[in-house]
Every structure is written in structure tokens, then in C-alpha cells.
């Protein structure tokens, strides 16, 4: 079932446009009501730069996942608003958000979220299948090469290792050249060696394709590949670091007194 409600994919890192890709203004998010209410976000302002890899770090319960869900239009803020690719999210209906996802957003999940009955190639092409677009052949072949899955095209997820599955997921996120890719603990379910390969691949996608990426993680080594690291604690951004060595990230985390 294909629907052509999406416009053609925009060029990643369009040099003509500058300025932030994602902006958050005074985001608050409250879960529950009354005495049991929990404030996951307590007023976050944020700008995600184009063509950069931004990591969001923080201890458990700091609100980092909530922040990403709201930035990626998966959840709605209690107050404040998000502008993604020039569109204010809060005002969009389900259909417009669907269009926005097709054109501007890619996802990488901790548990890969591949469709078990589809082959690697079919999983990767799924976003274009859904939007009814013709996949860009050259782009797709290049992507397959980059993620190193040329000889795994017809394998199903169950026949792939965790690292290979995450490569498929990364290729899927990149296939329609979205404005921004959101990665939710992309190495959270992988061993350390595989994690390194995946992080290298993500860094590579930012460097070679200029892919704007937002990554939520609590792994200092993952954060260390980012161009910019935001530290969250108790629902607020408490620190904004440029690219740093893992040791510096660990030190910063220790300062926050957690993990």
C-alpha cells in the first residue's frame, strides 16, 4: 500500500540552508498529576546544528529519552515547543506528522526494530516502500557498501548478528536522506567491540554525508564521537561540551554525580 503524500527527499546538508535543524523552546514534560506528578523536563532550550552529531547524555531518569521523544515528535511537551526543519511540531495533525517523518526524520533504535519477515534489503528500503517513492539506486548501493551489507542483502534479521542488524537499521534510517536522524541508545544492546564498529559507522555517516544526527546515550565512549555533548540532569541541560575524549566525558558525568 503506497501513498505519495511525501515530497521528494531533500538533499542532506543542503548548503543553501543554514542555522539549526531542530530547535526546542522551554520544553517541559510532566507525567502524572497531583502529588505523584513527575517533571521529566523542566524547561529545556536547545538548538541542533546542521551536519553535526549531537549527543545527549545523562544519568537514568535525567529526562534524556523524554527529550529525544519530544524532539522526534513521538511525544508532546506539556509546555514549550519544538521546531523541526522549519515546522512547529505542536500544531501538526497525525497526517502532517506522518509526512514530516517520511521527509525529515530517521530512527535508529536500541533494539533495532527490524521487521522479522523482511530481508535486510527490504528492511532498508521500507521507508521508501511506505512513502511510495522510487529509491535512489546509486545512493542505496553506496549505502549498502558503507554499512558493509552487500553480501547480506537476502538475509532475514534472525540470520544476522546484533551488529549486522543495527547496520541494517542505520541504513534504513539513512535511505531516504532525512533532515535529521534520531538514535536512541544505538549501542545499548551490543557488546563493546560491535559498539565501536557501529559508532564508527555513525560518525562516518555524519562526516561523509553531513547527516545531522541526535543520539541519546549513557555510554561515554558513544558520546565521545559526538561533535557536541549535552548533559542532562533532573530535566535541565546542565552542561554543553564540544567534542571530547571519553575520559573527559566520564569526568563530566562524575561531576554530575551519577552513573
Amino acid at each position, binding site marked *: *500500500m*503506497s*501513498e505519495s*503524500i*511525501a515530497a521528494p527527499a531533500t538533499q542532506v546538508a543542503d548548503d543553501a540552508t543554514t542555522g539549526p535543524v531542530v530547535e526546542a523552546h522551554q520544553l517541559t514534560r510532566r507525567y502524572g498529576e497531583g502529588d505523584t506528578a513527575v517533571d521529566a523536563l523542566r524547561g529545556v532550550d536547545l538548538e541542533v546544528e546542521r551536519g553535526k552529531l549531537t549527543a545527549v547524555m545523562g544519568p537514568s531518569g535525567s529526562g534524556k*529519552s523524554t527529550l529525544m*521523544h519530544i524532539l*522526534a*515528535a*513521538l*511525544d508532546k511537551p506539556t509546555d514549550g515547543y519544538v521546531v523541526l526543519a522549519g515546522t512547529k511540531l505542536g500544531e501538526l495533525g*497525525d*497526517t502532517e506528522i*506522518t509526512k514530516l*517523518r*517520511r521527509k525529515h*526524520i*530517521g*530512527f535508529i*533504535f*536500541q*533494539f533495532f*526494530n527490524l*521487521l*522479522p*519477515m*523482511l530481508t535486510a534489503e*527490504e528492511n532498508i528500503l*521500507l*521507508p521508501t*516502500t*511506505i*512513502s511510495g517513492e522510487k529509491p535512489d539506486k546509486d545512493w542505496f548501493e553506496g549505502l549498502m557498501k558503507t554499512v558493509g551489507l552487500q553480501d547480506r542483502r537476502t538475509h532475514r534479521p534472525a540470520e544476522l548478528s546484533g551488529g549486522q542488524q543495527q547496520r541494517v537499521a542505520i541504513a*534504513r534510517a539513512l535511505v*531516504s536522506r532525512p533532515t535529521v536522524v534520531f538514535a*536512541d541508545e544505538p549501542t545499548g544492546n551490543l557488546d563493546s567491540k560491535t559498539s565501536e564498529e557501529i559508532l564508527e559507522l555513525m560518525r562516518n555517516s555524519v562526516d561523509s554525508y553531513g547527516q545531522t544526527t541526535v543520539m541519546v546515550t549513557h555510554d561515554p565512549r558513544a558520546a565521545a564521537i559526538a561533535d557536541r555533548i549535552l548533559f542532562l540532569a533532573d530535566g535541565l541541560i546542565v552542561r554543553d561540551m564540544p567534542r571530547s575524549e571519553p575520559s573527559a566525558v566520564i569526568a563530566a558525568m562524575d561531576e554530575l554525580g551519577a552513573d
Partner: protein
Amino acid sequence: MVAVALKGLAGRKFRASLTALAVVLGVAMISGTYVLTDTINNGFDTIFTQSYKNADVIISGKAAFENVEGNGVETPSFPESILTKVRALPDVAVAEGSVTSDQVRMLKKNGKVVDTGGAPPLGFSVDPRFQRFNPTELTAGEWPRGPGQVAIDNHTADANGYKVGDAIGVQSNGAAKQFRITGIAKFSGVSSTGGATFALFAPKTAQELFGKVGQLDLIRIQSKAGVSTNKLVSQIKPLLPTTATVRNAEQQVKEDKKSLGSFIDFLQYALLAFAGIALFVGSFVIANTLSITIAQRTREFATLRTIGASRRQVLWSVVLEALIVGLVASIVGLFLGLGLAKVLNRLFVAVGIDLPQGNTVFATRTIIVSILVGTVITLVASLRPARRATRVPPIAAVREGSVLPESRWAKYGPVTALVVLLVAIALVCVGALASSLPTATQLLAIGLGVLLLFFGVSMNAARVVRPLAAVLGAPARSIGGAPGILARDNATRNPARTASTASALMIGLALVTFVAIFGQGLRASFEDAVNKLFIADYALTSTGNFQPISAKAGESLVGKPGASLVSPIRAGSARFLGSVHDISGVQANIPETVHLDWKQGNDSVPGKLGSNGFFTSSKYADDHDLHVGSPVSVQFPAGERVKLRLRGTYEEPKGGSPFGDAVISTTLFDKHNPRPQDLMVLVNTPDGVSDANTATLEDGVRGFADAKIQTRGEFIKTSEEPINRLLNLLYVLLALSVIVSLFGIVNTLVLTVFERTRELGMLRAVGMTRRQTRMMIRYESIVTALMGAALGIAVGTFLAALVIHALSGEGLVFSFPVMTIVYFVLAAIVVGILAAILPARRAARLNVLEALQYE
């Protein structure tokens, strides 16, 4: 997206086939019903068409009226002299006269009557000189040519070991006579004539045997080449008396088909109704299976949403899946129906409905209806789960668990459920009790009400799951220990799911319970009537319960030493006061064998009926404003009219009586019925019921192979057989729905096992044995089945009580068949055990390590 949906389906073949099973059976029933009834119709068509092959014009006897529902109307014969006149016509090429009878009983080698299971025991004359008209063909021997010779049908010959040259007893219009078998014959073009038997005789022999000397029932005529049928018909018409009529062969076939009445249509509708019930249950199962599957695929749908799938795409992917499952299931069901048609026919034969079978008919209509209905039902059942799939929020892609979001209307759920239930109860009550409404409106209200009632109970069932599980699960706990407790708790973990699984079983059990209680009511009111009326020592009836028996059987007892009083009840038809009624003939001694509760007149009335009196029930008299002395003009089958006067009225028991709407003297009855028959003959002996008297009476009717001597108790028992057989037939047909709901339980459990894989692994890891795992699943299954049984028995009892109350005027009484209901509960437990076999095995087979890592 289509490809994605198809691939998804292919990847879940096992789960998809679980869903499909629920449709397959219902569709098979539809297809089987059509195939069976079409094949039966084809059988009758062939028989009727064969009967007039090569004939252009047919002369047949004509009764003054027809009685479709009550006693048969004997078609009068006409004088043989007509044949001579017809042959003399210049346009007639060939004309053959024959006699027929549907009362020619053949005897087995042990002297008992060959049972036709309610079908007619036919007999007719064949004249080998007129082979062109003969609808039968020989399979062995030759045609009968003289007295004492007979050809019998191949089925009777095979079933009873008769061969050419054997002697066989044949009984028609009197005591049995011995014949020599000269040939074995079969009806051309049909694979079975059903229960009907036929015996063929030479014309003269047949006339004597049937009591139709000098008479004919049928003349087949072939016209000379170039003569129009219409012209011939108009030439013959003036030659005929009022008791005969002439038609072209086509019209005659149509006329013969009319004699079937709407029986086959009725059969078709009844069977389709059961198919409908099975499909209704199936739709519950499909909806439930799909919503569990969809809940388990929450993450998949959410992922699709995050990568750009719209709600509509999600909806269509689910609907498309249902469409394909429905289509495939319907096609499988369609072909399964071909086999089921044979099973259904066996079932009917077993309960005494043995109908002819032509060549198997697989009509286009069968294919279209089966596939359309099966597919549409699946599609409709998928809509609600599909809509719920569209409400899966994208954020579920990053969250654990598989709980579907609640609908916008969820908060109104309990209120809606209650309203639906109350409206349903109100509708059923109005339908059953508001007797001032037209019958059609009442039936519609009941039908809609029952449908809604099932929905209503199912919607509310989730709320009684916990208390029910506490009660029904108690034994599981004491028998099963820890697995028992876990099973009970598992059953209440997702009350909505358990409730809708149990609801599917509820429907079947509610209907079965209704049938059981209703049947018990019928039996009770019949017994009550017999106990009130039957004061004779013995009853002489036909071996085929409600089939009449030649009056000569009863007459043979008159004056015998063992029978101090013989009191026949003749049965026939007559037309009076604008419609055709059953009519009875009795003698003056009837008050000594039947207790009549006189409203007007007394026990002397039957003796004073003479040639112009009748009595009737006070109800009939009141309804038709008749009083003692009122004149009524009565017409008999051959057309004679007699003016009768009402002599008395009696109060008829609510359970009915052996009498028709008018009771006349046997003298008058026999005058207008040349071959009179008795419904029963009541007999008193000098010293009541004893083994010696039974033996004497049996000896007295020895010549009549179909005669049976019974005491009151035996009479009640054999008379109830048809009711019991009907009940058994209904149980078997409803069992189909129960089987469908059994698959529903299997589906839920299998899917639950998938869902709880990790938990099962944990239980195994902490020391639960495979056996305990199986027990746990089995107990959960039994608890679910018992919930269905509890709900079903409650709903069925409610409906039966209501309908019986509404029909209490007809003598129905409410009586709870405790033992039968106990059997139903046991059956539900068996269903639970059977349903658990596969899921329990899967659960026990899980690899502990893999299960723990399963997501």
C-alpha cells in the same frame, strides 16, 4: 506496503492458519448444505423426470385437495375403462396404464418390515411390453409377469440378502403375502433413492395387491409424430371423471415436485442457520485472535509509524491480511463442504431422514456464496482489531510491553456494555411475551435480541471473569497446586481476552442448553397428554411410529379371545370450513380406551355420530363459533361432500391428542376412504396388561409385519424417539459451533504462550517441570471453557424459560434437565482439555535458555 503485508502474513503462517480455522468450518457448512440439498433436489428431479420419460401426456388421479402438513391425502384412482377410450383416440401412438402405491412394505427374512426411515415404501406395476415408459432398469433377473412375482429394488436386495429366486413377504392393504423375486431393479439415473424402497409387479397382480382392481392411478401416453401435446390434452380432457386430470409431462413433473412441499427448502434454511451460527461464533474467534496478534505486534506497527507509515496504511495492512486469510479459508471451506455434504447425509440417515441422492451438484451459487460469506465475515471481524492497530502510537516503538491503547470510547465501555445487554434482554422479552404483536415482529425481536444478547453478555463478561475464575478455579487450585493457582491467575490476567474467548463457547452452549430445556418441555407436555388420555391396556401402532397402519390390522383383532375391546382411531384428511384438516374416525367404544373430558355432551356422543355427526375440541369449536347442532359441510379427498352436525366438544389436553379437528364414525370414514388407515388401535384385554396378553395380541396381528403392540409406557417411549432423535441432530449440528469455539481457545492459548515465552522460561528456570507447565496451560484452558459453559448455560436457561413461558398455552412446561446439563459441563471440560493439548505441548517444549532471551 502490500508486499510488506503479504510477507508479514507469510511469516506468520501458523498464527494465520489458527485464525483461518475459525472460518473454514462455517464455510464448509454453507458449502456442504448447498451441495447436499442440491444433490437431493437433483435426485428427486431425476426420479420425477425418469418417471415420465418418453411420455408426452400423463393422466393421473386428482384429490379434491392437498394436506401438506398433516395426514396424507390419498389420491383417488380412476376406472381402467379410460385407458380403452384414450387408446381409441386417433392421435395416440402408445398408452400404458399403471397402478401405484406408497404403502407396499417388503419384509426382511426375519419377517420384520424393511425400515424406510419415514420415506415411502413404493410399489408400482410394470408392463414389459412398454419398456419405453419404464423408469427402472433391471440389474439382475427379469421383470415380473404373473401372480406371485415381484421385482425389488437393488438397495433392499443388497441390504437384506435377497437374490433372484428367493421368496419375499410383501404387505399392502392387508396382511402380508409371499412373492417370488424374479428380478432386481434400480431407478435409472440416481445413486440412491434414499430410504424409499420399491417393489414392481405385473399390472393385474399390482391391482389386486393394492386393492385397486379395475382401476388405474396413472396413464402414460405417447402421441403420434407431429401431434401437439396441447391438442392431445384437449382431446383427452372430456373423457375424464372429476377424480382424474391430464397434463403434459413437464407439468406433471412440476406437480410431483410440489408434493415434496417446501421440505428441502426448509432443510436448506435450517442447515444454513447452523452454518450461520458457526460463522457467528467464528467471527468472535477471528476478532479475538486478531486482536491478540495485533497486540503482540504493537512494536512492529509503532516502528512502521516512526518510519513514515500513515494510520491508513496500518489499517489496510491488517485488513488486507484478513482479506487473504478469509479468502483462503473460504476456498478451503468450500471444498471441505463437498466432504461435509456426505457426512451430513449420513447424519440425516442416522436420524431417519433418508433422501434420494442424484449426482453430486457443485453449483456456481455454492461457490459464490461460500467464498463471499466467509471472506466478508473475516473482513468484518477484522475491522475492530485493525482500527485498534491504527491507534498504536509511534512511541510504542521504543517502549516495552504489548498493550494496545484504549479507544477514545473506552471510558463509555462499561455503560455501553450494560446498555447493550439491557436492550437485548428487553428485545427478547418483548419478542417472547408481547403476544399482541404480529408473529413476524415477535420473531424479529427475538432474533435480533438473541444476537444482541450474545454481544451484550460477551461485552460484560470481562467483569465477571475474576469472580468466575475464583469459583471455577478453586478445584484447579486444590487439585493442581502451584500450576493450578498460576493457571487461575493467568486466566484473569487479561479479563477482556479471557472473556471473549469464553464468549465464543458461550454461544454454542447457550443454544445447546436452550434445545435441551425446550426438548425436555416438549417431552413433559407430551407425557402429560398421554397420561391423561390413554386409559386403554394396549395400543396397536405401526412400527414406524407415526405412520398409519392399514385398518385391517386392527380388524384382525376383533373377536379374538385376548382382545375384549378393540377401538381404532382412523386418520385421514378432509376439507371443511375453508381449509384442509386432519380428520379422525372412531367407534362407540372410544371412551373406554381414551379419557375424553367432555365440555358439551358425554361419553355417549361417539356412539351417536352415525353417518352425519362429528365431535371436536372445545378450542376448535370456540375458534370457529360452533355449537352443538351447528352444521358443517365436509369434503372428502375423492370430492364427495357430506353435511355433518356437531354432537359434542371435549377439552383437549395442552400436549395434544390423537384426534384431528373433526372426529366422525368409522362407518362414515370408511365410506369415503376406500383403503382406510389407523393412526393407532387401542385395545383392552379382559385382565389388563400382562406378558400373556401381550403375547396373545402380538400373535393376533402376526400377519401384519408393521404392527406393534405397546403398553402405555412403551407407547410414550417410542413416541418420544423422534423428539430425541431431533434433539440429537440439533446437538450434533450445534457441536460444529462448539468446535469452532474450541479452536478459539486453542488460538488464545497458543498466542498467550508466545507472549509469555520469557515468563515460561523463568518458571522453568526456577524449577517448574514440563509436566507442571502442561498442567498450568491445561487448567487455564479448562477454567476458560468452564466460564464459557457457565455463561452459556445461564443464557440458554434464560432464553428457554422465556420461550417456554410464552408457549405455556401450548402445554409446554419448564423442566430443567439436570443430567443433560451436567453432561454439557463435562463436555466443556473435555473441550478445555482438548484445546490445551497443542498449546501445552508448545509451552512444555520451550528451551529454557532461549525462552529467557526471547523478546
